[in-house]
Each structure stands twice: as C-alpha cells, then as structure tokens.
C-alpha cells in the first residue's frame, strides 16, 4: 500500500524494528494519554446533562416519587415488552433484507450503489408524519387493508421501522463488507462448492458481526424510542406511552427519560452478549 522504497536509513530502522519488542507495551507508549483525554472529554459531555436531569428528577417529594410513579404504572412493562418484540422483529427483517443487498451491490452490481444508497437515505429526510400518513392511506383499503386488524397494523409498524433502519443498517453493513475481502471469500467458498445461501449464512454473516451488532443497536434504540409512527398507527408502544406519561407533569418526564435511557442501555448490553455468543469468525482459504 505504501510507496516508499527503503533507503539505507530505513533499512537500519527496519533492523531495529524487527529486533525491538512489540506487543501491548510497545503500542501503549504511543500517546495513549491523549486518547484518555479524548475519552474523558466524551464522558463529561455525555454524562453531565444526564446528571443534571437526575438531580432535577430527585427534586420531587419524596425524592424518588417520580421514579416510583413511573415504574408502578400498569402500562409501563406492557408497552416496553411490546416495543422490545417489535424491535427484535425489525432487526431480523432488516438484516435479512440489507445484508444480501449490500453484498450483491458490492460484488456484482456496483452501478446500483448510488440508487440503493439514495433509497436507504430517503427515510432520513421524509418526516415520519408524512410516511405514516402515506402508509395509512395506502394500506387502509383494498387490496391490503392492513390497518383494519391489530396484527396487520403491527406488521405495518414493523415494516415502517425496517424502512427507518435502512440508513443505519446499510451504512454499517457496507462498512463491514468494505473491511473484509468479499470477493476472495466468495470465490474461495464457491470453489469449495458452496451455494449462495451457504456463502451468505456461513461466510459473510459471521464476518460481519461487529457491523450487524452496531446496526442492531441503532435499530433497537430507534424502535424503543420512536413515537410518531406508533402513535398514528395506534399501537401500544413504549414511545407513545412515555410521552403520555411525561407530558403534563414536572418531575416524571425527567425520571422517564433516565429510566428509558437506562433500560435501553441494558438491552444494548444484552444484544452485545448475544452477539458475542454467536459462532466465531469462519475463515475460508487465504481470506485473512
């Protein structure tokens, strides 16, 4: 990759480098103080507003009243469970659609890339209220009156969320594919007689674990917190519930946003654990 030809000084340094100790100790001496500072700056920026919210929420009387009001509410667990299930369904569907697509675009159809990227970025710029009204208008009559039944409306909700997840999932999978040598992996697997399904399922997916996790994180957080589409489709999701609870009270909204933040973070942790437990990377031929 580099274009420098070694001169005499470089050769000397190479000899030096080859005999010098490498490994963790060698790497750490390279300015890790700077990185600690960067990380600390990030921590400050992210946690101070959360801390301020916490302090405010504790001004209720008695101090934890806001939290007990929220947690004791009957609909809290129900709506959270509902949204979690919807999130899992969304993640599975989104991965199932995006990974093959990104794979094909990268491998065989590079000309389609701008179109695919444009389509995946559309959900960003379409205000959710327009999307949901469009969905209702399309699916509230023949031939697919999805809105008439609860299961149909749930399906509509998952579909809308899958669409919302496209920008993140595609971006993450695309970066992941870029980092692995897709062409060689594919050709090596094919030369061993693997069909397309096996290639995707046993070669590509395991190598994309980090990307898929990152896409899954984002999708989960989006679905749990989403408000507009769930509201207009009249679904008993967590987002509308939170907003309902917090609207006309002083301390509960602060408590609610922290509880929701905490719960979502825990869920992320669980997704991470599940991802880690999945089968490790599969090497095929001289891939790495």
């Amino acid at each position, binding site marked *: *990759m*580099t274009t*420098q030809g070694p*001169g005499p000084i470089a050769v000397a340094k*190479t000899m030096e480098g*080859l005999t010098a100790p490498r490994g963790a100790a060698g*790497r*750490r001496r390279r300015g*890790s103080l700077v*990185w600690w500072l*960067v*990380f600390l700056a*990030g921590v400050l920026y*992210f946690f101070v*507003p959360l*801390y301020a919210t916490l302090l405010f929420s504790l001004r209720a009387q008695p101090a934890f009243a806001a939290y007990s009001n929220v947690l004791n509410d009957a609909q809290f667990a129900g709506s959270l469970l509902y949204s979690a299930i919807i999130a899992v369904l969304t993640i599975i569907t989104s991965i*199932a659609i995006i990974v*093959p697509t990104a794979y094909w675009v990268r491998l*065989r*159809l590079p000309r389609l890339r*701008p179109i695919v*990227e*444009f389509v995946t*970025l559309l959900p*960003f*710029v*379409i*205000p959710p*209220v327009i999307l949901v*009204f*469009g969905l209702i208008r*399309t699916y509230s009559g023949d031939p697919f009156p999805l809105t008439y039944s609860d299961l149909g409306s749930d399906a509509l909700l998952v*579909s*809308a969320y*899958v669409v919302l997840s496209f920008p*993140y999932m595609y*971006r*993450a999978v695309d*970066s992941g594919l*870029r980092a*692995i040598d897709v062409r060689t992996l594919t*050709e*090596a697997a094919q030369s061993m007689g693997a069909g*397309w399904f096996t290639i995707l399922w046993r070669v590509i997916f395991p190598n994309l674990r*980090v*990307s898929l*996790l*990152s896409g899954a*994180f*984002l999708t*989960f*957080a989006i679905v*749990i*917190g989403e408000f507009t589409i769930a509201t207009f489709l009249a679904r008993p999701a967590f987002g509308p519930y939170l*907003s309902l609870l917090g609207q006309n009270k002083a301390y509960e*909204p602060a408590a609610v*946003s922290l509880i929701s933040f905490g719960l979502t*973070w825990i869920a*992320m942790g669980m997704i*991470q654990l599940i991802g880690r437990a999945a089968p490790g990377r599969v090497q095929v031929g001289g891939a790495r």
Partner: protein
Amino acid sequence: MTEATSVVNAREAPTAPPVRRRGAWAVLGVVPFFAFSALFLILPIGFLVIGSFQDSAANLTLQNYADLSEPFIVEAYGNSIEISLVTAVVGGIFGFLLAYAVILGGLPGFLRTALMTFSGVASNFAGIPLALAFIFTLGNVGLVTKFLLDALGINIASAGFNLYTKIGLEIVYLYFQFPLMVLIVAPALDGLKRDWREASENLGASPAQYWRHVALPILTPTLLGAVILLFGNSFGAQATAYQLTGGTINLVTLVISSQMRGDVLHNPGLGYALAMGMVVIMAISIIAYALLQRRSERWLR
C-alpha cells in the same frame, strides 16, 4: 478469475457453477430490497409527491414550489443546511477521535463495549428529553451555568453564551451525532489491519505518513459516507429544535411541521413541497458523495 482462485481450483476437485448463471442471480439478490422499499417507502411517498402539487382544495398547482423561493423559506433551508453541516463535520471529527480512542488508542477493552452500547442509546436520545437535559445543564438556571458562576465566578451569559441560539442547538445536536459517528466508524477502524501499521512502521514511515498514505485513504469512503449520514440525521431533526428554540430559529423541519401539524393548518401542500426540497438536497449530497468516493476508491483494488 484471479490468481488465487485458479490456484485454489487446481487443489480442489468440486467445480463452481459457470460464470454466466451468476448474472441472473445478482439481480434477484436485490429484488427483496427494492420490493420492500417500493411497498413501504416509495408508495407512501407517492402521496407526498402528489400532495406537493396540490393546494388545500386538492387542485393541481405549482404554487407550492413557487412558494419555496420566499425569503422566509430560503432562510429556513439556509439555517438547516448550515446547522447540519456544522454538526456533521464536528460530529464526524470528534466521533472519529472517540472511536479511535477506544479501538486503537490503547484503552482497556471494556471501555470499548461501554462506548458502543452507550452510543447505541445516545444516538437516539433526541427530542424533548434531550432538549430538557441540556436546558437543565446549560440553561439560565442550569447546573453548569450555576456551577461556573458560583464556583468559578464565570458568567457565561454575560460572556455572550445563550443556549437558545444556533450554537446552542448545534451543541445539543452533537449529543446524537457523536455516537452515530462512533457506531458507523467502528467497524471500519476494526478493519484497519494492524499489519499495515506495523509494516509501514518497519518501512520507516512516521505515524503521520502512515495516516496520510495508508489509513486515511482506506477510511475515506466510510468517513465520507458517515458524514453524509450525520448531515441527513441533523437535517431531519425536528422535535429537539422545536422544544429548545420554541420556533425562534427558522428550520425546514419546523416549517414543515407547522404546515402539517399542530394547531395551525396553513397548507399541507407547501409542507410536502418543502419535504421534496429536502429529498433533493439529500440526493445532491449523495451524488457528491458518490463522486468523491469513486475517486478515493481507486486506492482499493
């Protein structure tokens, strides 16, 4: 076929399917995506497109698009683009640094997991809770404001700082831009093979040269793509801006929502036309990104 494959073929007995059949498979592979998008994205947006050509009585008109040239709306687009650019670039830079810090900066491994999972949550922490969190922190009676005043004697208000301005909004938006950048860039940083760094060191390259000639060219497509994503993310934000500024800053998303929702029904057709304007801006950014990316991808095979 490449060298590697032919070598492999010589070793292994089973044959791969002939090249010709792969062409048909390729298109089939992307059909689910396009079908899904058509059903649940394009079709509903059809109403958006049609609606932008209608007035409140559903007659066909181009007036909505003509209205887009009103100075008020031009200013809204200007503000939205400016704020989105600033938060995309700043978010991109510091997000990249944060991701680098935990992945390649020598920090303990558990911090990486913590940052990734936290970023998953924080990237979606927006709207009223985010705005309120920052008001509690940097508002007139905010935690940090008071701390700076009481403990350090610094009065940020008299120094000219005000949370309820464009700069304040940008500071708030970064809360979800940084984590988004971290999440997008992490897989790419992971892929930056360590061997390359060590090889370049062995060949006498300084870290700066490594970055300039090896790492950045490899990362550029991902970085560019991430910045576009951050731009779009910021452009589409509405609830946070509404709560924080009460509408005193003119933004496209706020104008759209005031045309289509809330208590004032001006002209939904104008709202649709504004949204179409956003789609066009996004399309332009993607074209720019595709052109830039094509140039940078010459580095990779």
